[in-house]
């Protein structure tokens, strides 16, 4: 099979388009690269959505954790502790079992004028269930990062803001928030990379891949089982992950440069990438 054919047949296989049967018999390298790449769509989907929603929730958590009243602070502290203190692996298993136990029912609501009928059985599917777990998990980790940065905002900046008569929301939006984001950004970049790597765990999380629409590792293990040779598919996964990690670093680096554009060049903090295993 030529590579173009493989691409046509399996390019969007992970979304359910193209060839129905996965390749069998003689399996070429093209099919492996294409199909695993197609699975990467899911990894990217999980990472992008979890990070996007997680960013805002993490910000709320950080502000709540830094708040004085205990009824605001305690829930945020506990949320962060629970999700940072336990393995993501266990969180996945537990969430899946919990979602499966939920009674089957539908909820109807309208979002932006479109009627949507949500069903609880969606939660037992990877696209929603695993996404929710990843979302909570990254929110907790990023929340702790933002909390640390919030505490590290220079006292002088806040005093200057007070002197200018800024207070409350205006002070937060114009002084605290930009400085906090700037300080947190290198650590947050690492968190984004972690989370992206953590999407590989979805494969092991017992959320089923319906109609063989799986993520990158799903197809990699399929090929490893079929060909009995793990030395091709797993390195392909690794290469894909490295490529997208570099992409994340590039994008976050640009944002970092923008956040620090007011500083003299020598004083700008550099991104120090420290990818680490497991969470």
């Amino acid at each position, binding site marked *: 099979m030529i590579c173009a054919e493989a691409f046509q047949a399996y390019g969007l296989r992970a979304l359910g388009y193209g060839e129905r049967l996965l390749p069998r018999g003689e399996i070429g390298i093209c099919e492996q690269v294409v199909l695993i790449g197609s699975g990467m769509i899911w990894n990217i989907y999980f990472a992008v959505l979890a990070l996007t929603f997680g960013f805002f929730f993490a910000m709320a958590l950080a502000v709540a954790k830094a708040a004085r009243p205990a009824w605001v602070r305690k829930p945020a502290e506990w949320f962060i*502790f*629970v999700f940072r*203190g*336990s*393995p*993501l*692996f*266990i*969180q996945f*298993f*537990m969430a899946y*079992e*919990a979602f*499966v*136990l939920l009674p089957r029912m539908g909820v109807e609501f309208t979002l932006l004028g479109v009627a949507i009928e949500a069903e609880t059985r969606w939660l037992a599917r990877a696209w929603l269930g695993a996404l929710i777990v990843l979302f909570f998990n990254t929110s907790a980790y990023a929340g702790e990062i933002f909390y640390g940065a919030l505490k590290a905002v220079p006292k002088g900046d806040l005093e200057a803001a007070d002197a200018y008569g800024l207070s409350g929301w205006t002070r937060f939006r114009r002084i605290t928030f930009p400085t906090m984001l700037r300080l947190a950004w290198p650590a947050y970049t690492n968190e984004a990379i972690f989370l992206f*790597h*953590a999407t*590989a*765990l979805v494969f*092991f999380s017992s959320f089923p891949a319906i109609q063989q629409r799986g993520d990158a*590792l799903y197809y990699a293990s399929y090929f490893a089982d079929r*060909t*009995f*040779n*793990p030395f091709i598919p*797993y390195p392909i*996964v*690794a290469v894909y*992950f*490295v490529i997208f*990690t570099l992409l994340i670093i590039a994008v976050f680096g640009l944002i970092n440069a923008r956040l620090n554009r007011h500083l003299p060049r020598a004083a700008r903090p550099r991104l120090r990438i*420290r*990818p*680490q*295993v*497991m*969470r």
Partner: protein
Amino acid sequence: MFEFCTDPSVLPTGQWFACYLTNGVHFLFYQSFLTVFLLLAITAPLALAMGFGAAAASRAEIAPIRWLGKGYTAMVRGVPDIVFFLFFVLVLDQGIEYIRHLIACPGWTDPIRQGANFIVCDAARTPQSSAPQWVHETYNFALAIFTYAIVFGAFCGNVLYGAMQAVPRAQLETAEAYGMARGQVFWRVLVPQMWIYALPGLSNIWMILIKATPLLFLLGIQDIVFWARELGGSRTSAYQYPHPDWRFWYFLGLLIFYLAFTRVSEIVLSRLTTRLSRGQATAGGEDLRRAEA
């Protein structure tokens, strides 16, 4: 376990659970917690030792040793997480068999890789197929421990190298001025002082190590995740203790176990930080000195 357990189906709830939680398979489940502690107890010192070696090697005068130390830490840190874990055990397994094959069967002419299969002579099978079950389990466990130690050793090496660099230069120069040899400076001045700088990084690694233990399940070890899935699955009335799908509750138990473990570690590590700050030329040490004065 208890005498009243002969016919569980007629027992009231409290006694039923007492019997259920103390039956034979549950003791295997409780034992698997020991597996986790055993893994941590072996891996942590091993990883620390490997990290220390790597950090010391990274500072060596002789270039090849330095490259070895730096190469090791860089290699493991650069490769993405879980792929490494899945892959490395396999490579290790096949590597050991291949080397034993070369030694044990020099006259072997068939290719080892026949298409997709990895075939070595029977004498090189590790462990031997005639070996009892526990040898297979121990071998798998040892492979897992070694994998953990290599990965976490690289992390420790990175942290310890940074800590060694963080010890104030003046301290080392003073020691040299007193006429200490390189080894003496290293063991008497650098090493005692570096721990306080290494501790935040090391405690981070310890937390990650705790949270990495469920991955044992992926390496085919019968650990707590394995037993939680096994025991939690629903049981029909054909079994002695029929129950619906309880996996959620078992995983909840594991979650609480990990949270408690993390919390205890946090408390111990913060005590250790205070202990190590004593007499150090850092802000923490200064605070302690003031408090005592």
